[in-house]
């Protein structure tokens, strides 16, 4: 971690030195650090960060919840999969901007539409990995559960979940990472709060250091969420890692 951060700062300084770009295009780390302190002390970073965090956490939870529920159903039924797949793929290919008016009409311009966009972003990778994971459950262990007359819930909790876990957690890794950008896309489309908004404001006022502060906070948020999943993985997959 320390190595990574050091490496990152070094690269950044190098870029600044080598490219000689003006500060309003690529500010130096020290300038961004200074701006960071300012944004922190005037409370704007915390306010907007908290707004985005709320959207991300809600969107991620909803997305993961629905994706895994639906994934479970699709894994069980090839028919359902064949019918629904095109819709699910479609839901990923529609640019937010194209349906922005519908989003506003149906969900207003409040937090809900951001949470929705975030959840949609998270949805697909989690769904696909849920299906792939559940399909990878060894058939002989299914037989074992069946021979013990396990209920569907028991089969799920004692077999399918743990067996699919490495793949499910892979989906969660992707989902956690994408959730941040999902929420921000929602904010960019329209919002008066959140890091996406802060970045927009920074861009509008040519306060590039603020843009970088926003981006770095986003990145930290994403890395944090990702690390959470990695930590979860370490705890849950002990049998694979030992």
């Amino acid at each position, binding site marked *: 971690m320390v190595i990574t951060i050091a490496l990152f700062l070094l690269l950044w300084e190098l870029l600044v030195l080598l490219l000689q770009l003006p500060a309003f*295009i690529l500010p130096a780390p020290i300038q961004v650090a200074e701006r960071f302190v*300012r944004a922190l002390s005037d409370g704007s970073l915390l306010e907007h960060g908290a707004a985005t965090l709320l959207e991300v956490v809600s969107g991620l939870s909803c997305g993961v919840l629905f994706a895994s529920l639906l994934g479970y159903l699709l894994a069980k039924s090839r028919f359902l999969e064949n019918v629904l797949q095109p819709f699910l793929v479609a839901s990923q290919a529609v640019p937010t901007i194209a349906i*922005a*008016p519908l989003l506003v009409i149906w969900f207003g311009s409040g937090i809900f539409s951001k949470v929705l966009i975030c959840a949609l972003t998270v949805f697909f990778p989690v769904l696909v990995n849920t299906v792939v994971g559940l399909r990878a459950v060894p058939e002989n262990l299914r037989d074992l559960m069946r021979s013990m007359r396990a209920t569907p819930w028991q089969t799920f909790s004692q077999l399918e979940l743990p067996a699919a876990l490495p793949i499910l957690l892979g989906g969660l890794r992707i989902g956690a990472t994408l959730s941040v950008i999902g929420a921000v896309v929602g904010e960019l489309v329209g919002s008066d709060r959140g890091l996406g908004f802060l970045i927009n404001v920074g861009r509008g006022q*040519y306060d590039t250091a603020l843009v970088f502060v926003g981006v770095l906070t986003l990145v930290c948020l994403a890395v944090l969420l990702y690390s959470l999943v990695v930590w979860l993985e370490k705890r849950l997959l002990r049998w694979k890692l030992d």
Partner: protein
Amino acid sequence: SSQKVSAVRLPLGYIPNVQFAPLYVAIEKGYFSEEGIQVELDYNMETDSVALVGSDELQFAIVSGEQVLLGRAQQLPVVYVAAWYEDYPVGIAALKEQNLRSPHDLKGKTIGLPGLYGASYIGLEALLHAGGLSDADVTLQSIGYTQVESLANRVVDVVDIYTSNEPIQLQARGYEVDVLPVSDYLSLVANGLITNEKTMEEDPDLVRGMVRALTRGVTYTAEHADEAFQICKKYVDNLASLTPEEQEVQRQVLEASIKIWQVERPGYSDPQAWQNMQDLLLRMELLSSPLDLSAAYSNTFLPE
């Protein structure tokens, strides 16, 4: 007064900015509440305000003149009821070394613009036409909203900009630029308040109130720029956190904006500007046939 309070959501199509100072002033000074209006500014960037107003999902919006015509061409019953800007705010800018004196000098240049749509594109076409040029005489590059950066790095020769913003940003960073505003060559309809025909018929007082509050805001801001700037700090995120130098730049943006606002005859729409806009859109084939322009705008809600 004892009348009911109407809640109005007003989409601006952009993030909070000093250029919206008249609205902040009107809110702060109570111009809206005097009319019995509780206004909520809406900064959604990608909302189709015209479509939402046309479908009566919203009652008002701030949009640019060409959008009214384009919307009406699609049977959207929107009406422009008050001009906020007198001058079309689009122009082109180039570094001094390009020696850009007139639109004709654009010949052979690479021009960066946000995209081949929207007000920037329309303004650019007007300029090209004024210079006797067509698209084929120049190279157009869609660069998104990166005009300042692209010009500073000489990615393009000329950029398509909002006259009250980018040139000031460039100058503040030490780049000497020449600016050619569209309004020097052609009068076009710029930003103003729109509503829909239903609201116009059913609640003319509300429309009148909106127009009055807006125009009072514009007038007051133009006369009290300093105070307006201070008010902006309350409404424009991050403005108060900028360094003094950066704040000064924003201040200049406000002043440049004031210069292109409709302050002589507050809210007044110039029929010639509408005609010019329609001609331009027809030439660009964005309109396929002329519209009934008199239905597109109205000066009847203006304060005496």
